């Protein structure tokens, strides 16, 4: 920056930029303030639809702390989220490396690869469910044709979460790929050239040049994936409904059950508040990591 520009910047134009954000803030506030106030208000009440409301203070939160089903759902949520973040990141980064190279039909392959991310989750989850049918589904047919034993997929307590994760991975790896590809495409080529001249092999170039360059993008993808995985609903709801039993019941599914099947609005509101706090905490941790790894 030249001296006059630097001086202008130092005059603190920062403050005057906020009005740009006012319309967006206004709309967002309008749509989320009332629900949030309602949720907080309701969480301090005992209210079942069809019955009168009753103020109970913190009783709902106390009940949550001792609710084995809720505590179990936290475990399921964290486990599901961990798998649904790590696997797409790994596969997506690998795919990005592949798509960064030039090869024939690259455009077509890319288009096909990102199709899953575009597909409507509900619609595709229904198709997956048909593929998972233990006797009539095509996936077990494929397994048995190559000599492997058929799997119970979403109908067994042990395999339901990995099954759901599989669908999530299929669905969201393209998004990770695109984000990381963005980082790769913007990476400068000089470091590679000098490294090659120095005799570095592919692995060393990846480890010491590529990885640090794409790290901010990977972290961005991790943040986005984590928030989305924590809130995942459509796929789980359609394929297993939280079952078998409660084996794949995440916080979001349990929340839905309490609010829309049992009509316990008060209790469900308390779950929302706790869930939100959990997401915020995790998001904060990840954003802090992002700040630390910011590139340039």
């Amino acid at each position, binding site marked *: 920056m030249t001296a006059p520009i630097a001086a202008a910047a130092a005059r603190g134009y920062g403050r005057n930029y906020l009005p740009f954000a006012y319309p967006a803030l206004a709309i967002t506030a309008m749509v989320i303030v009332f629900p949030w106030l309602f949720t907080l208000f309701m969480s301090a009440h005992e209210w079942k639809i069809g019955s009168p409301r009753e103020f109970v203070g913190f009783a709902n939160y106390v009940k949550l702390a001792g609710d084995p089903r809720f505590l179990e759902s936290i475990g399921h949520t964290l486990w599901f989220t961990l798998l649904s973040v790590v696997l797409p990141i790994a596969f997506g980064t690998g795919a990005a490396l592949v798509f960064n190279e030039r090869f024939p039909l690259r455009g077509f392959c890319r288009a*096909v690869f990102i199709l899953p991310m*575009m*597909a409507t989750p509900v619609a595709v989850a229904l198709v997956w469910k048909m593929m998972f049918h233990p006797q009539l589904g095509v996936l077990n047919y494929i397994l048995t044709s190559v000599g492997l034993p058929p799997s119970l997929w979403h109908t067994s307590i042990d395999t339901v979460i990995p099954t759901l994760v599989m669908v999530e991975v299929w669905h969201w790896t393209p998004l990770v790929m695109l984000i990381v*590809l963005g980082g790769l495409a913007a990476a400068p080529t000089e470091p590679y050239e000098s490294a090659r001249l120095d005799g570095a092999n592919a692995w060393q170039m990846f480890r010491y040049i590529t990885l640090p360059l794409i790290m901010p993008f990977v972290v961005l993808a991790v943040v986005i994936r984590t928030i989305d995985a924590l809130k995942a609903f*459509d796929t789980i709801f359609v394929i297993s409904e939280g079952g078998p039993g409660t084996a794949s019941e995440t916080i979001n599914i349990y929340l839905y059950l309490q609010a829309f099947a049992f009509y316990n609005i008060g209790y469900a509101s308390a779950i929302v508040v706790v869930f939100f706090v959990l997401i915020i905490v995790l998001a904060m941790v990840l954003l802090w990591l992002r700040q630390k790894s910011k590139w340039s």
Partner: protein
Amino acid sequence: MSAPARTSELSWLARRVASKLAFGFAVFVIVSPAILVMLWMLSLSLKNEVDNMAYPPVFIPSPPTLANFEAVFENSNLMRYLVNSLLVTGGATLVAILVGVPAGYGIAKASAHRTAICILIARITPALSYLIPLYMMFQMLGLTGSLWPIFITHLVITIPIFVYVMIGFFESLPPDLEEAALIDGCTLWQAFRHVALPLARPGIVVAMILSIIFSWNNFVFGAVLGGRQTRTLPAAVYNMLTFEQVAWGPLAAAALLVTAPVLVLTLFIQKEIVGGLTAGGVKGG
């Protein structure tokens, strides 16, 4: 040519071929899950029920039938739901462009992280917690029965996407050009409108695509807030579970019809998507 040089040339060739093959295999492995599931969905929708229930599974329909698609159009108001989805997603994306791009710009320039968080809270809040209070609110405002409730709730999806993408984008844009414009006497808005905005096209494209995808595919809002006439397409698909059987044919046909618009859009604009996301990274600087 001497013998050692020849073998080394051959082994170099072999290595090249091997690595190309390995690469091709990697591409195949990466791309096949995506396409196979889509193809299976297509296959299911073109087969009649007996074929669909057959085990071992029938891959190529014999004969293929369009009956499933006919059934879908007959049994539900699919055109109406398509129009609803178009209106809601189109409208919500448009509004998001109008308010989200300036917001992203303003927040990036002002480094107003706290404001960013306020808007992103909308993204982080579980969607279900909006439903009952918003339903009651719309009830009080007399809007139930129209598309407005769904449209307004979709803003909660689209605006944060735009804001978040544009913040990242504008933060990485070098400020020199705008500073020059400001020195020349432009107002902040003019600097934005005439300098920053034209450069923002890749970012806007990316945000627009993400916004369209997430809004179009949203199931929960349309299902709970939508009435018979005002449902969106994904919500309608879930209702297609017919009573008689799990009816795989019509279900797959409906799933395909719902997903098709976005998939077609993807195939046409995939270059833009990739270009936009890759241009979002800093060029030089």
